[in-house]
């Protein structure tokens, strides 16, 4: 019983870590330009296809697949901002939100056109033999996922809290006009935010493919939606909130599956969202917005 519990705990941590990585991208972009980037989940899908192409089609090493997936997602994120969102910087927020949905459909249907609707099998990146610790069988993928997420989050926190560019991000997210007056190039800062969020999505893509080893054109939809729920749950705009929200969603799903109600696992996540929106609409670590005149 205890062994199962620990295994499930690790599963929850693994799934939650992936959601957390994706949620970080949502929350960072929202924090800086108040956009719910609905194309974010689809960036992960592109990352998965890149891994598939590199390993399965070109027969190259998994290391190269990881690097190219992360790089590809990063560039794609910046490109989407430059092409689709930057021209709408001064437009009403609804225009840019609709654009994000449009970009999402473009990526999904574009991928379907190029790769077909069937699932592509992504070969395994690492040796998946379980590691035995005492009576526990630990999945190396789960351990790797948790470790990579912990390191990525730590690096991100350092970048945002300590570096000049990270501070500029926080300044732009609080007051874009005042940030301009400081000599901060707002467009560069926003691009950098998209780059970081998308790089995390790239890492998430690789970790997802390690766990589920397939790429489909619509794989980003549910993953993106759940990460979005995680970001809102933690308090959108908050970096630690995204991690907490991601882990909570992961645990909730695994827990529901573990007690034999796996058909309900998606519903439980959205139920969680509804409860949070009713009880504490700003999320767990969300700040209540107040405007001083």
């Amino acid at each position, binding site marked *: 019983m205890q062994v199962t519990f620990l295994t499930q705990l690790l599963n929850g941590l693994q799934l939650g870590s992936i959601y957390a990585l994706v949620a970080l991208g949502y929350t960072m972009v929202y924090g800086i330009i108040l956009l719910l980037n609905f194309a974010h989940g689809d960036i992960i899908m592109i990352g998965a296809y890149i891994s598939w192409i590199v390993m399965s089609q070109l027969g190259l090493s998994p290391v190269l697949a990881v690097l190219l997936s992360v790089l590809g997602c990063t560039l794609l994120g910046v490109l989407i901002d430059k092409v689709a969102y930057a021209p709408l910087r001064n437009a009403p927020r609804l225009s840019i939100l609709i654009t994000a949905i449009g970009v999402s459909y473009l990526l999904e249907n574009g991928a379907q056109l190029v790769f077909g609707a069937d699932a592509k099998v992504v070969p395994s990146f690492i040796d998946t033999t379980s590691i035995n610790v005492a009576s526990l069988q630990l999945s190396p993928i789960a351990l790797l996922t948790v470790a990579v997420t912990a390191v990525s989050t730590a690096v991100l926190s350092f970048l945002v809290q300590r570096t000049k560019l990270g501070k500029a991000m926080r*300044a732009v997210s609080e007051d874009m*006009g005042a940030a301009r007056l400081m000599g901060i190039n707002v467009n560069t800062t926003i691009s950098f935010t998209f780059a970081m969020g998308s790089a995390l999505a790239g890492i998430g893509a690789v970790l997802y493919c390690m766990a589920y080893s397939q790429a489909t054109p619509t794989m980003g939809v549910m993953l993106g939606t759940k990460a979005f729920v995680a970001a809102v749950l933690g308090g959108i705009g908050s970096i630690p909130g995204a991690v907490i929200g991601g882990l909570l969603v992961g645990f909730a799903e695994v827990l529901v599956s573990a007690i034999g109600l796996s058909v309900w696992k998606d519903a439980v996540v959205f139920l969680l969202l509804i409860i949070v929106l009713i009880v504490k609409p700003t999320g767990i670590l969300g700040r209540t917005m107040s405007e001083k005149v």
Partner: protein
Amino acid sequence: MSSILSVRDLCVSYGAIKAVRGISFEINEGEIVTLIGANGAGKSSTLNAVSGLIRPASGEVDFKGQSLVGVRPHKIVERGLALCPEGRRVFTQMSVAENLDMGGYTRSDAENEETMRLVFDHFPRLRERVSQSAGTMSGGEQQMLAMGRALMSKPDLLMLDEPSMGLAPILVDEIFTIIKELNRQGTTILLVEQNASMALSIAGRGYVLETGTISMTGTGADLLHNDDVRKAYLGA
């Protein structure tokens, strides 16, 4: 005295509303010049156009002999022109030190360290609160932080938009003393104020802005004693 900022026939519009209707003024190196006027006269619009936050509908803005029209705001800061905006607009979620760091964004870390010491000499209270988050400070302290932050870019011309807004009289005195001191040490200042008597008492020259046009100009003392100005802005 040579001209540092020269504005000619500046017009600023928001859609169909003309906020500034062709104003011209000049600031020479080392001066304190004030722009006074009622709410909605176009004072802030003028400053926002000069600093690049909004694009003028027409007119010329020359700073140190080069045009600023169409130059992006972060480039204007690099050229040595800083605006301390109306309502302070400090970064409330960031500490005092981080706010000052942002002010020196265009400068190197080594330079910022030195400039920060100078800022602390002007505003000792900021030194005491260096790691406090700006949102928890009083209005007067936030104003000091906003000014200190603008000084971090070592501007040749510092534009202050309503630095006395919402402050207790004793703090207003303190802020104006510091403005005089900054000027004495070599910073040229363009001061926009609704508190006309304070502004005119420290300014070498002043311009009176009325519904987007300059209605009067003269030395600070002349305007302070002008009957029309006294009636309209000094409540006398």
